[in-house]
């Protein structure tokens, strides 16, 4: 059983190569998976999946009356011969899927054993790889985090990657992320919503422990064409601190804003904390349900293979 962490994990424990983010064995197993959207979206280019957008395809969808300006190539002349009226044949167009994975890079994620940030980064890499393999349009974004000068980097992103050959580029981008800083969730969600390129699947990897609240941030992306998955990443030491040796008279320091809380940890306090955590996660889950967001709680002690190949398939994110 891991002991209660005293602070962020050391830099030496962080991966420096793409192979350390995702190994070939996992890649081989992920080759057979695909990201599933609960919705059918338009894409900018013809892709590998059906879209609700009618277009040029072999799969007939419907008819509609011809209006001026319609492409004459899609007029159904047989109907015109029978009814003497112009109707257009409407086909279901197969589009590509837009997959955007948002990683929380704030200080609060840079904690735990295993580290929540490292776990989220590996998970993002795996999901992105699945998207690339299936010719989806993959974008990655990170909020929080620090730039090379140690200043808050704001929203960082890499967009429109497609195809397996972009895997290394995506991995390098993830490796260059430096966790740190505080907050920025709401602003990040707002900017992503404003700059969205088509519709698609959005996966947010965060602990959602935002003191300003998670609601406004999620509201920006919910119901705006994204099929949103909120994956709440928590370390086992957060879920059950008493079991991991948290005890005694402590001065707890918030990693993001250095706020302090003096706590004498005993069984009553631990029980109270568990109640608050359950209530907090419950409120996030309720909020997500109301916004048609799929909420998933991920414990970083869960094996990544098992999470991808088993748990997320059961939850319908992967197939």
């Amino acid at each position, binding site marked *: 059983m891991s002991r209660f962490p005293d602070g962020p994990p050391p830099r030496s424990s962080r991966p420096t190569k793409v192979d350390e983010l995702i190994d070939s064995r996992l890649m081989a197993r992920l080759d057979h998976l695909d990201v599933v959207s609960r919705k059918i979206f338009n894409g900018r280019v013809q892709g590998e999946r059906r879209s609700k957008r009618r277009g040029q395809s072999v799969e007939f969808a419907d008819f509609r009356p011809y209006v001026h300006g319609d492409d004459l190539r899609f007029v159904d002349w047989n109907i015109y011969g029978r009814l003497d009226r112009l109707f257009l044949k409407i086909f279901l167009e197969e589009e590509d899927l837009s997959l955007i994975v948002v990683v929380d890079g704030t200080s609060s994620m840079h904690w735990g054993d295993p580290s929540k940030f490292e776990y989220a980064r590996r998970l993002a890499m795996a999901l992105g790889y699945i998207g690339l393999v299936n010719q989806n349009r993959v974008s990655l974004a990170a909020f929080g985090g620090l730039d090379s000068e140690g200043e808050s980097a704001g929203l960082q992103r890499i967009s429109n990657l497609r195809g397996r050959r972009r895997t290394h580029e995506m991995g390098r981008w993830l490796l260059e992320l430096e966790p740190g800083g505080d907050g920025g969730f709401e602003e990040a969600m707002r900017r992503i919503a404003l700059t969205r390129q088509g519709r698609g699947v959005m996966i947010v990897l965060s602990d959602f422990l935002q003191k300003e609240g998670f609601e406004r941030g999620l509201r920006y992306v919910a119901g705006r064409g994204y099929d949103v998955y909120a994956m709440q990443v928590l370390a086992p030491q957060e879920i059950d601190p008493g079991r991991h040796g948290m005890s005694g008279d402590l*001065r707890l320091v918030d*990693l993001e804003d250095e706020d302090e*809380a003096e706590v004498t940890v005993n069984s009553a*306090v631990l029980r109270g904390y568990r109640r608050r955590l359950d209530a907090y996660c419950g409120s996030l889950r309720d909020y997500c349900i109301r916004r048609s967001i799929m909420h998933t709680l991920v414990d970083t002690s869960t094996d990544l293979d098992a999470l991808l190949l088993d748990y997320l398939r059961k939850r319908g994110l992967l197939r």
Partner: protein
Amino acid sequence: MSWLTPLFGGIVLASVIPPLVALYFLRLRRTRRSIPSTLLWKRSVEDLRANAPFQRLRPTLLLFLQLLFLALLGIALMQPRFDAGERRDGRTVIVVDNSSSMNILDGDDSGETSRLEFAKASAIERIEALHGGGLFSGDAAEIMVVAFNDEAEIRTPFTDSRQTAIQAVRGIEPTDGTSRLGGALQLARAYLTVIDPDSQTGPVATPAAVELWSDGRIDDLDEQVLREGERLEYHRVGSIEASNIGIASIAAQRPYDEPGRIQVFIAVENPTDQARTTDLQLSVNGVVRAITPVPIEIGPETEEPGLGRIPGRKQFAFAPFEQERDAVIEVLLLNEDAQPTDDAAMLVVPPARRLKVALVDTESFVLRSILEGMALESLDLLTLDAYETLAASGGLDDYDVVVLDDAAVETLPPGRYLSFGRTPPIEGLTEFGDPAEGIVVRRSAEDHPVLRYVNLDELFVSSMRKLTTGTGVESLVESGDGPMVVSVDRGPIQIIHATFDPLDSNWPYLRSFVNFVPNAIEYLGGLGDAVASAGVAPGSPLTARLPAQAMDLRVRRPDGSDVAVESADPMTFAWGPVRRAGRYELSWTEPGDDSPRRRIFAVNQLDPTERRVAAAESIELSLDRIIGEAAAAGGTRWQDFWPWLLGVSLVLMMLEWWLWQRQSAAG
């Protein structure tokens, strides 16, 4: 359970616990921990505060252990204790009998604990119960410990230290002495007497309780009277059904006409109400020489009007046997009984030799005729001047016995004397008043070797000097006007003295005189022999007259242990008193002769009171009869259990420290 210092412990608790609680909650030392967010923790603590009215008093294990530690410490300081018996303030004298009968192994049911060991254990428990003093209180009972046999010994004067009293009891050693309580009471009273310089009323004895651990077989009970305010408690030790027979006396003699042979006489007593039988075994120098062919029977004790209970007695004479040389004779009773000490008696018999006797200033042809008729090596007739000359030059050492026939001697150098008439100049014999006239014998010690076959019923003395006697003087023949024949034992000086001139009596015409003089000469000559002495009772010193140049004196005890003896004057060697019965061997060397010389002493316990071993249910003083209660021992011994509390609190402190370390390491 009682508390010795509740106030002290209460004050300590009241002054320590509140500061601990305050310090515990006020202390600023908190371990710093970085966490992702304080969001949920703050809410949890706020919840807790909202729902718990005494949130600050919410206990932790460490606080609990610390409070428990302090509570135990405080309780320990209050000195709780169990009362194992009556606790009494004031003064208590613990008197423990360590006489011979207390060595019997019936102290408890196991049969392996002696009465003395059990009495000591019981007395220690009593001391612990009596002792009211704790570390911080001053009202402890004062306890004095006295051990007694034929002599009393203060083990510790009055002390309020429990450990001192207990150590004093533990240090009491077994002896084979007799029991005499008077000395113990006198010693206790001496320490109880308070002299107030401001008072004109003289010394005042503060009353005290005397607690006696004994089997109740004490010689001088009828001489003791409890004073006003004194209280005696009798803790009976030993079985009231123990039975025993023992040797009452032992004697040996060389027949007058056969000095190369020895005849041994023995008397066995049975102080029980059942007839007993036993075999007797005679050993000479460790070699068994004879065993009685059939067991001898000793009758039960009988009730004699005016004399009380008289034990059954059997006298037995072994057949004479050849023994030219000196011999250590031992007689054993071969039966099994409670007291083995009196089942053996030893005697040292000198070699067959003839004596050198000097007769000083004699006018009695009768006395001279008797001496001339004895088989002596030599008989020298000395004038008074010749005697004084020899006394000054040490020439009297050549004589085994000097006979003073109404001689007015001025000096009495070490030696053996048979004296008639004038009182010899020695401490313990003091003439007083005018001579008594018309004296007849009232009592004589017929068991004494000097009076063997001496019937004094017809003795009439016309004129006799009246004497008072001091210590060390035994009256062998008594008249209504005082002693007629006394035995004086002054170590190097032994005297048998008749306080009248035989010519002033009809004694020269009686057969008893003819027996008395040789008996006395042989008795004194035996005492002065170079290698042997008669039996010594436990409690008496070993005395001997050794050559002036004797050195490297050593005494070997009956248990085989050796002890070196420093003696400034070997001619007046004295060592002791001896406490155990058995064979003692004195050895020494002389210049120019490397081979050690030896003298053997036989110490026998032949006391009739010690032979009566059944524990007495009550003891009868001259005025009071005190019922005894069986002494108890082996109960709980930890009346004070504050040391246990202290120990537990220390363990708690270590546990608390370990937990703190563990939490610190984990944190």
